[in-house]
């Protein structure tokens, strides 16, 4: 009896600890990936807008990381992660999985094109920047909902 109570208490305790492991939840992982993406885009935008000098190595690092995010991103929308952790994922991701997968594949393809172009000067960066970012809004139009 005592042992059973102890086991039950341990299980309840473990369940209680689960929120502490939030960093592993898909909702959190995919949010962090998009934040990383935003940071890298910021590096590129500042160069494109002339607010920072063009730096080929920095630009390439950002483009490579964006491609990394794009390759990984689609894996973090399993069934059961529709809600929670302030997710802004729209129900359309799960109701229109094929459309979402296609949009993520497009993101990956656009990111690969930009990365492979390896822009050597500002004009080359500007040339890849437009095609790289033109689909951000198209995907967020359908597959993201703002909560605030």
């Amino acid at each position, binding site marked *: 009896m005592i042992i059973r109570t102890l086991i039950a208490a341990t299980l309840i305790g473990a369940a209680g600890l689960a929120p502490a492991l939030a960093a592993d939840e898909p909702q959190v992982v995919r949010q962090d990936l998009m*934040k990383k993406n935003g940071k890298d885009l910021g590096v590129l935008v500042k160069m494109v807008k002339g607010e920072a000098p063009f730096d080929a190595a920095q630009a390439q690092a950002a483009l490579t990381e964006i491609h990394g995010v794009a390759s990984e991103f689609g894996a973090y929308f399993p069934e059961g992660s529709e809600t929670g952790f302030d997710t802004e994922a729209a129900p359309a991701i799960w109701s229109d999985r094929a459309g979402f997968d296609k949009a993520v594949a497009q993101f990956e393809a656009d990111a690969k094109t930009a990365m492979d172009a390896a822009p050597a000067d500002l004009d080359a960066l500007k040339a890849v920047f437009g095609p790289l970012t033109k689909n*951000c809004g198209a995907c967020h139009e359908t597959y993201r*909902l703002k909560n605030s």
Partner: protein
Amino acid sequence: MSRLAIGLGVAAVAAAATAFVLTMPKPVQSARLETISGLEGDPVAGEAVFWAGGCASCHAAPGAEGDALKVLSGGVRLKSDFGTFIGPNISPDPEHGIGGWSVADFANAMLAGVSPDGGHYYPAFPYGSYARMSDKDIADLFAFLKTLPASATASLPHELGFPFNIRRTLGGWKLLFFSDQPRVALASDDPALVRGQYLVEGPGHCGECHTPRNALGGFKTDAWLAGAKNPEGEGVIPNLTPGGKSIGSWSAADIAYYLESGFTPDFDSVGGSMVDVQKNMAHLPGSDREAIAAYLKALPDRPDGWK
């Protein structure tokens, strides 16, 4: 018949007559229509009004992009608490579009929500905002629309339940909520602010989504641009006032850049129904986007309108 019954009967007839008069569609005053009809519309200037007004978002075919945005065949479905509205054909086709309209017909539609046959339009067509537009912008926009390709696609009827399918009830709605007055009093007459107020409250019709509504579909006037529930489903439409969490931390330059590029200050991107709006805003001169930003930063703080 008792005197009471006669009295009640007279009162009922009087009430019905009053309601009939009060809900009658009221077109624009004839002097103003004459002024507008006397203007020579400039289609080039009208194109800027077209983008500021977001006409294509509801009147181009669903999913249209690029040049297809200028074929105003209609068909976009706009869900609301009252039913689904379907954007009509406003291309220059004389049968299915507005090819047979005079500029006075157009002014009545835009400024008073009154159709050429004298009926009410539903305020899903945001004449409650367009009512603030200038005579010149109306004439220029009409001149631009006439340059666009005609489309022979028939307009579809709105899908509304009773009593919202009775257009006459809109006379009551207009009586309660229609106004062509400023939504907020600005502390300064800085030309950029005045221009921003014109664009946001008039052609841009930002408040139509960003301001919460009461049960009858009128704006909660003390919550101007405070954000609202998304009428099309889940999620919210952000709070645009300077104290709000949505964009309160953005500078005026951040707002202008967002409207130009679709990027937030964190380099997140525009989403939802704002994607089309941002693409429209990208067509405006930079000074107009800066004016919109200046006006938004000058708004009174309001708590989130969806709470």
